[in-house]
């Protein structure tokens, strides 16, 4: 620690009538309210326009229930598969060394940088009807899963990578010198340290997958009761001028995402406690 980093007690500031940053906080809150909160409030209000009974009826139509159920299940599967894949990729990027590793590391973020509609087209090129390898899964549930895995690929990698980099290698060396096999060392020493990061990465991936639209819309074929996800269902309801039905399902989708977001914040605190 250099001298500049030593905690220096700040000189007592002159007491102001308003706390510092109040104006900035006010302006930011106003901007966020106008751009984000007000529109979302309109969705919530619209979903309850016809009372709770209408809301319930809109959410429990067979097509809506099927779309919501499929969305949650396929998002969970995508998040789980990417947790395993993401751990593997993060491990190789941190512990292995080979030519082109830095380029590969940069390419991990490609799903964030690529527009979702392009992601859909990209997957259709390889796994659609003109597939050069003869795999055609277009308009199936597998296609939806592939799309969700594509767009959520970076989350777990980027959550695990920094933790893995900072992990103390001495513990592993100690474990190995006491006779543990690499497998045992990984399971008992490394893995427990990665659990908070894995969980928060998986939760972020799930939250993203639940609302995904652009990459799925071309791949899924939008077959009701089969490949239709909630976001596409909402889109179709808006197109057919059923704003009430769209708003009701949108509120359910919002509630799921918000729950996950709250869970991630809790996980963050839990992870921080475990480190200290």
């Amino acid at each position, binding site marked *: 620690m250099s001298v500049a980093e030593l905690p220096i007690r700040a000189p007592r500031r002159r007491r102001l009538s308003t706390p510092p940053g109040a104006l900035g906080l006010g302006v930011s809150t106003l901007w966020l309210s106008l751009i984000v909160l007000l529109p979302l409030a309109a969705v919530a209000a619209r979903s309850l326009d016809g009372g709770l009974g209408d809301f319930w009826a809109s959410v429990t139509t067979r097509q809506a229930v099927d779309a919501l159920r499929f969305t949650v299940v396929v998002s969970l599967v995508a998040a789980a598969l990417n947790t395993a*894949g993401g751990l593997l990729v993060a491990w190789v990027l941190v512990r292995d060394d080979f030519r082109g590793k830095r380029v590969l590391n940069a390419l991990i973020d490609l799903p964030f940088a690529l527009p979702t509609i392009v992601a859909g087209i990209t997957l259709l090129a390889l796994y659609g009807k003109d597939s050069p390898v003869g795999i055609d899964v277009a308009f199936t549930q597998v296609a939806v899963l592939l799309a969700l895995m594509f767009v959520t690929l970076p989350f777990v990698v980027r959550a695990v990578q920094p933790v893995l980099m900072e992990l103390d290698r001495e513990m592993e060396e100690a474990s190995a010198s006491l006779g543990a096999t690499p497998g045992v060392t990984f399971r008992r020493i490394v893995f427990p340290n990665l659990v908070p990061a894995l969980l928060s990465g998986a939760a972020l991936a799930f939250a993203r997958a639940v609302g995904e639209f652009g990459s799925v819309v071309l791949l899924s074929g939008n077959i009701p009761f089969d490949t239709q996800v909630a976001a596409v269902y909402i889109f179709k309801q808006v197109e057919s001028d059923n704003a009430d039905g769209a708003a009701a399902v949108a509120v359910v989708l919002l509630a799921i995402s918000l729950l996950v977001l709250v869970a991630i914040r809790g996980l963050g605190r839990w992870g921080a406690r475990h480190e200290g």
Partner: protein
Amino acid sequence: MRAETVHRLALRALALGYLGVLLLIPVGLVFWRTFEPGLGAVWDAVTTPAAISAFWLTIAVALIAVPLNALFGVVAALALVRGRAPGRRVLDALIDLPFAVSPVVIGLSLVLLYGRDGWFGGWLAERGIQVIFSVPGIVLATIFVSVPFVVREVAPVLREVGDEQEQAAATLGAGAWQTFRRVTLPSIRWGIAYGVVLATARAIGEFGAVSIVSGKIAGETETLTLLVEKRFTNFDVAGAYAASALLALIGLATLLAMSLLSSRRSPSTR
């Protein structure tokens, strides 16, 4: 030693295979398919009047949305990290909302606010202002989706640099604005740049929200991503690939900018 090497190579092969099947081969294939018919055909596909107008609309919308959110991002990050006003935690929690909301829900929310039957629909119609199915709706949707990026990049940098230098400047007699311009801004500029890159990529690539509010009028309210979808559903696959490749190139440029900036954005890694 031998077994360790085998392990390492096996894991590497697995990881590369996973990335290849899911990410690298599909993206590579789109580029291959795009440029297979030759550069001339690609050039023609991305220079049709509809494509040019979509390109400029996309750029114009990003040029409105991103600077506004960069300004918001810096103000909000300062208020969150340096401010002492009550209510900071609430704002901090709400800023991430756009990440959690489905693009389709964002589009729907704007329709319910500014559309024909929306809260402000009547008021706007009386004054002859059209938001939905027109450019202002696209701009609002794009601002919505790109709100959090700059705050989320700048706030950690502000936290990390601490406020000793700012206090020193204040002690030496600098005003608030002077301190910000001469001390704070230079230390967060790379953080801002990184956030702006992410926000721009998101703004250019937004599809779901824009697709609901735009009305998709060719030459008027059609952005690049909407053009890709339209061409693809109209069986103009080569045209869709060409426009996709253009967007993918923007994405790759974003990645390049990200990796160039990432080592500079935080003071501890500089």
